[in-house]
């Protein structure tokens, strides 16, 4: 088990390879479908004008993402009435939906690590090689357990996206994950896909 503390250095990222388990301590930002689309449309491709508190939110997340981690997660959050937020359930969501956006978001904000489940594709793998960065696979559905590693909710941006889609700033301790895409161009997902395809072809040839 590699213990990682944010911000994570390039040297540490380069030292990690697919298959290695990690435990993360520090700060990360959640962001999923609505957040990625908003970042791309408003600040990267700029095909929509910032409105409301967009610019304020952008300025606030920039330093958090610079050298930081983005977690594909739509949590269950208690304390919505009092704003004394607490994560109740917080496993990863499927990452591949962010594949069209992730590489560009990584480059724009200098994101070092993406946490989610199910893995991502070649564009994100490419961005991991450039950054250098990595993709960390959390255990899908392990929501109560992961929520216990979220020791504090530090803030939230774009809550109007809804609780699951908002960008929550969280402090974590020993958040468990496995490196499945590394900065050396290796992807465990591509390996499993390829191997299972060969087996599938053999099975399809049988009656």
């Amino acid at each position, binding site marked *: 088990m590699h213990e990682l503390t944010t911000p994570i250095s390039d040297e540490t990222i380069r030292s990690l390879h697919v298959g290695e388990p990690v435990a993360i301590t520090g700060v990360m930002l959640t962001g999923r479908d609505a957040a990625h689309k908003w970042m791309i449309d408003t600040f990267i491709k700029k095909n929509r004008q910032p409105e409301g508190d967009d610019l304020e939110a952008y300025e606030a997340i920039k330093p958090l993402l610079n050298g930081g981690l983005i977690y594909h997660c739509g949590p269950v959050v208690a304390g919505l009435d009092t704003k004394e937020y607490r994560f109740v359930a917080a496993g990863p969501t499927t990452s591949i939906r962010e594949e069209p956006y992730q590489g560009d978001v990584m480059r724009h904000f200098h994101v070092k690590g993406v946490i989610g489940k199910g893995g991502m594709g070649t564009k994100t793998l490419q961005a991991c090689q450039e950054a250098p960065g990595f993709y960390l696979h959390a*255990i*899908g559905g*392990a929501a109560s357990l992961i929520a216990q590693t979220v020791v504090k909710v530090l803030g939230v941006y774009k809550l109007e996206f809804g609780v699951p889609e908002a960008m929550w700033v969280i402090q974590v301790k020993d958040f468990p994950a496995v490196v499945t895409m590394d900065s050396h161009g290796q992807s465990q997902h591509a390996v*499993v896909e390829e191997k299972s395809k060969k087996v599938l072809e053999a099975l399809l040839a049988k009656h």
Partner: protein
Amino acid sequence: MLDLTQQILELVRLTSTDLPPDVEKALHQALDHEQPGSAARGALETIIKNVELSRANSTPICQDTGTPIFYVYYPAGWSTRQLRSQIEAAVVEATKKSYLRPNSVDSLTGKNSGNNLGGSYFPTVHFEEVDGNTLTIELMLKGGGCENVGIQYSLPNSQLGAGRDLAGVRKVVLDAVHKAQGQGCAPGILGVAIGGDRGSSYYASKEALFRKMDEPNSNPELGALETRLTEEANQLGIGPMGFGGETTVMGTRITALNRLPASFFVTISYMCWAYRRRKMTVFRDGTVKYE
């Protein structure tokens, strides 16, 4: 008519936070098959720990509490309109208590209703009148990750060499498992419907998932195909979370519907390992049993 709101709230809590024993047993069996020290075994260990923690703390097993899908089997004399409003009230309360995540999003505005209500399809409630005096409500919570890898094939499918028979069904189901990889939170359970129209086939593929893990198919031919498909899906080696490993699928449930001469659909609903389904029975004297 009885007000069952509090009893339905308990059904929601139980479904979201306490995995059925047959599923937990299957997860333990899967764990036994994985290599010590492997990522696959680590994933299953975490999953089992999470299941135990969720039960102890009454917190959602998975943060994606899905679309609440209710099946209500009611004796004559109950009002389905009142039952629906009690189910809605229970869902709102369950959301406040953090048993459910606010999951109902307006597809046009993107706005989350915040309370898990939204139109006549959210939550989804199916009603069916039954003989006798007991009312039964079954609930399934099926998250979006596994829902997104569900797929429907129209046979014949020349690319897969799948014709309009059970051999063809076998091929498309294996293709679906391969396409899903780890995205549906493997190890999963497959709900398969053969036949129907596009809509009924999807419904039936989910209804098949209410059958317990150790309950055999009433049709021996389909039962044999279920066993074979589970074994062959596991040969793919996708494994827990798609990390590579021995258990990709914990079980297969197949049902068959009549079809039109022109159509031969095979629909696969992929259920994640967080296979949350529970049942409550309300007896004539008002007592309630959960299982």
